[in-house]
């Protein structure tokens, strides 16, 4: 029984990889584009900011520290944000989840397998990226233990992201268009997680408020783990990621059961 189930996951994952790789140019751009955007925008902006201030530190961040923070933020983004379920709401609206209601392999498992497939590819991109960043001098000597912990934590966070995306995608049962929600949520997530501006640079009140949300867990905490910051409570943070993931998984289960009753399988 378990073996048969695992084989379903394994096969769906391998077919998903085949699908991602079916379009070579698209696939290669998918791997290269994030790095290009990172170098072109994020890294350059912070470099310019520091240079315009004559290299003066900002809230305790020197230019080198900030650039390292941005490098690791990029790696964390590669390892965590697959956004493979962004099209779930569209699939619901266009009746494309119908097949998954018929197959003896649930829809969420299919999307989860797709996510695993993409994460495997992203993981294969992230490792060479770390090596390249080190080779070109963007990162200092690597602390292998910090790297291993950072990767482990990031993979946990990627599951949280997946569940979060999946839950948001289920809004497609009620709404014709959900991309505005996604964009708003994405912007909030980038801003409040410290993906662009470290949370330490926020006003203390906002830092306290953000501390009660899962946002710091998705970028700030893993970046600090990669940076080897001693004050990060890794065990507690992992527990929080698991707790948020479990809570969102329960919510998505409830939302799915309610939403599927409204499903009309439009288009067939």
């Amino acid at each position, binding site marked *: 029984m378990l073996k*048969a189930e695992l084989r379903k996951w394994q096969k769906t994952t391998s*077919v998903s990889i085949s*699908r991602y790789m079916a379009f070579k140019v698209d696939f290669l751009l998918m791997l290269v584009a994030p790095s290009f955007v990172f170098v072109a925008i994020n890294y350059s902006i912070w470099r310019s900011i520091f240079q315009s201030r004559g290299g003066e530190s900002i809230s305790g961040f020197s230019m080198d520290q900030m650039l390292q923070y941005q490098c690791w933020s990029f790696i964390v983004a590669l390892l965590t944000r697959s956004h493979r379920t962004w099209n779930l709401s569209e699939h619901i609206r266009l009746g494309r989840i*119908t*097949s998954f209601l*018929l197959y*003896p*392999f649930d829809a969420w498992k299919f999307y989860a397998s797709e996510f695993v497939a993409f994460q495997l590819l992203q993981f294969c991109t992230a490792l060479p990226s770390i090596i390249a960043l080190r080779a070109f001098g963007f990162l200092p000597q690597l602390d292998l233990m910090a790297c291993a912990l950072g990767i482990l934590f990031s993979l946990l966070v990627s599951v949280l992201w997946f569940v979060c995306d999946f839950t948001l995608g289920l809004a497609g049962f009620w709404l014709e268009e959900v991309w505005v929600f996604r964009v708003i949520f994405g912007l909030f997530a980038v801003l409040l997680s410290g993906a662009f501006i470290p949370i330490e640079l926020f006003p203390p009140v906002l830092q306290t408020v953000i501390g009660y949300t899962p946002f710091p867990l998705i970028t700030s905490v893993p970046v600090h783990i990669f940076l080897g910051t001693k004050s990060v409570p890794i065990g507690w943070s992992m527990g929080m990621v698991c707790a948020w993931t479990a809570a969102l998984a329960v919510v998505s289960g409830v939302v799915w059961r309610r939403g599927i009753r409204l499903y009309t*399988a439009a288009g*067939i």
Partner: protein
Amino acid sequence: MNEPVISCQALGKDYRTSRKAPGLVGTLRAFVAPQYASVAAVADFDLEVRPGEIVGLLGPNGAGKTTLMKMLTGIVEPTRGSARVLGYEPFKRPRDFRRRIALVMGQKTQLWMDIPAYDSFQLLQRYYEVPDKDFAERVHTLGEMLGVRHLFTTHMRRLSLGERMKMELMACLLHKPDLCFLDEPTIGLDVVAQKHIRDFFRDYQRENQTTIILTSHYMADIEALCPRIVLVLGGRKRFDGTIGEFEGILGKEKFVSLVFSDRVDQNHPLWTDLNPQWDESGMSVELQIREDALRERSIQLLSAFPVVDYSTEKLPIERVLKALVTNPHLLPG
């Protein structure tokens, strides 16, 4: 024993639709205070289907055929009534239920377009837990029957519509379902491909005794495959019987075609009560003549007009359906 494969009582499905008056005012009003209406897509539907039956669901667009199929496959939840399919409540979609059914949607592909069909088959093999030996045997047999073995490794998006549909059929039969729903499986195909698929299903069903529910706008599909017809009009079942009984609803009539050597008087009293359908040139006509009056009326027509060609056949099912859709009061009950 011989429990019904499908049994539903008073099954109904309502859809909520938004209403918007035309123009900018209508748009603003719909934005501020949207109005909704409930539309019954299927109502009070009773149906019983025995193992091995092939049932044709007939009806015009929007009659509720596909909604009925969606409810019976567990895709949408019924608003009212009850349904049991293979002993299961469809909307609960237990895994064993899903393993035993299949749905082919002519208007929607279920296979992955970015990969070859064989990769999709292997994925479905895992989903349905088909043993390797059975899988290899079925892929071989179905591929031979449909003549598509040489296309297994071609990407789906590179196949023609007919070839794609054959792959869809293979995919839906790989797990040997007990019950197969075919929603317009020949739509968009040329006549040769349509016949190929009809012949395939007839042979497959004969061999496997699979229960099949078929909807199609091509009456040739229904005539070739379905001994039993269920007519759906306005979401309700209006007829349930054999194809012979269906053809007999309008009375025992023959369909007669005449071709003339010259234009004829279309207002001649002989055409009265024969429901003449003239072609644009006025050189040929199609008539409906009662079987018991066929000889007498034919002699009259052949004597009165310059007929160069005469043919007769039983009333085509299309004609019966068209007459019943436009005149539902002709239906019994």
